[in-house]
């Protein structure tokens, strides 16, 4: 469950899942929608795959990703998307680093 929360807490990964709702896509097709480096994108795919939210299949030279969400994961995705989960996580991180700075 922790891996699923971790995977869904990132807006880029959530956007990947939204894109895959329409149809399975190759890594290149997905990467076109983002302005991030290839290794970063691969890391995002790895996190999603590890959480079991997507499956990958090698088709020729490219890797095709397909969505694999359960009902609860789908609900969690909608919830996190709707409430801007990363904003909360970001402010929590900011609070945490401010606290650390104070103690130093």
């Amino acid at each position, binding site marked *: 469950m922790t891996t699923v929360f971790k995977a869904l807490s990132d807006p880029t990964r959530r956007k990947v899942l939204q894109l895959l709702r329409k149809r399975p896509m190759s890594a290149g097709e997905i990467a076109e929608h983002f302005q991030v480096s290839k290794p970063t994108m691969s890391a995002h795919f790895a996190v999603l795959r590890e959480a*079991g939210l997507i499956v990958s299949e090698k088709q020729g030279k490219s890797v095709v990703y397909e969505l*694999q969400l359960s009902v609860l994961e789908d609900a969690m995705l909608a919830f996190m998307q709707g409430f801007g989960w990363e904003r909360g996580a970001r402010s929590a991180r900011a609070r945490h680093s401010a606290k650390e700075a104070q103690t130093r």
Partner: protein
Amino acid sequence: MKRMIPPAIGFLLLTAVMLAVALAHRAGIVDATFAFRAIGTCVALMAIVTGNFLPKMRPLGATTGDIERVAGAERRAGWLLFLMGLGLAAIFLFVPVAAARWIAPIVALGGVGLIELDWIWTVWITRSASGEAARSQDGTSRERRRLAAGLLFGLAYVLVTASLKFLAEDTSRLRSLGAWSIVGFSIAYAVFLAVVDFRRRGWHS
């Protein structure tokens, strides 16, 4: 395939609990009301477990053609089963037994019927692409679909027989209905597997 094990284990565990409750009731350890509510709640949990994992198992399994439509039907079925399970659990836990006896079957049979109609419609309008998709599937997808089909037929069987049992007052008629439903479901399951296999090999091979 590894991720499909939890729903299968959950399904078997719930079946074991249902059997244990039925045996306990027969032995006079628990009363009829408790047995009714416990078995009903187990059926509801079966629907929740199967519904939750259904979209992950991709029972209709389109990989080419109108994927969005097919995946949408699978997602709708998952949500419908999940919500139906929650509704059934609430009925079995909180509604008086006399009322639950006729409300629960309506909800269960209605839900199964809706999913069936939606899938028939989806398979019908995507029929040319789905044959191609079925042929292009790898072994893991086929195994996943087989497991999904087994779980779905198992759940449908439990829902229909439980509904018949709750609705029918006459025990002798109930026994014959039960026997006919076993025969009907076995035939339907065999036909379903044959169609899946036929589509995989292609209609002309």
